[in-house]
């Protein structure tokens, strides 16, 4: 079994974490946007 370089593992975790945060923020943004669109669309009817 290959040894995993600690520096590599730290960088891997850092990138995973930053990608997860970015993805979370994008999804949260879409949730807010779809909620606002729904309210506007319902209000227009």
């Amino acid at each position: 079994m290959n040894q995993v370089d600690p520096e590599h593992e730290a960088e891997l975790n850092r990138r995973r974490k930053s990608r997860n945060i970015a993805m979370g923020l994008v999804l949260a943004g879409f949730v807010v946007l779809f909620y606002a669109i729904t309210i506007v669309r319902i209000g227009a009817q």
Partner: protein
Amino acid sequence: MVGLFKEQIMTSATLQQQLPADWRDFLALTKPGVMRLVIFTGLCGLLAAPGSINPVLGFTAVLCIAMGAGGSAVLNMWWEADIDAKMKRTANRPLPTGRIARRDARDFGIALSVAAVLIMGVAVNWLAAGILAIATVYYAVIYTMWLKPRTPQNIVIGGGAGAFPPMIGWVAVTNDITAMPILLFAIIFMWTPPHFWALALFVKSDYAKAGIPMLPVVAGEKVTRQQILLYSVILLPLTIAPWAIGGTSWLYGISAAVLSTVFLGFAVKVAFRERGDDDTMKPEKQLFAYSIVYLFVLFGVLVADRVLAAQGMIG
């Protein structure tokens, strides 16, 4: 023992490949610099259109235009990764350097493009969504995959893709295609060739190295300079046309006439010269720089004109 050691210690290149891509690399794939102009012209189309749109839906429309442009750009970079690797200007992009896997880029581009069209359709209107879908297919498939590597008129054809955003912004408000959004499309369509050919004249060697049939490479500088002048001549009456058909007031009409005459002046300087020894290509660089300012100011004045007219401050 040495073999085992080699297996255990990963090289930096292997590490680079095995690490997941950074979110900034995905953002870079969407060409944020190009997106700025797309967002601006799309927003101008939206603001200049007659009638009104709810701010939330207006924001959504512009977001979808940006997502569509971003998705197209990602698909463009996915398809052209090999070409990008050969050009100094593009060799450091995420795909040629291996920071992102090609399959990931393709999936990201498709997801972004499809989501943009669906959200536009559901939230705003399906006519705007349809034009956005056409713009995406036009840029990512017809231009990037088919015509760009085959014809020196690639810039003229590619300009069509960049011309869609103000039309989409306009249709997002009106849900109708009239002469004005078609004119806005035509203005950017005619503006693109002199803008990019000015750039191609001073980065000519890079395109030649990548095998892209850019006009200066295939037809020579003289023809390119003539074509720059031709499109700039057509651009002048075209930018005044919105005023001529009664779509704007004198404010836009006079501004467009002045801005386009200056544009033509720069184009004339480029058209009637030849490259000398140790040429700094100053007129070409000036035309390229002015063309960017020109488009921002022209569309900015269009919006100002329509906003002032809506408030009854001008006729």
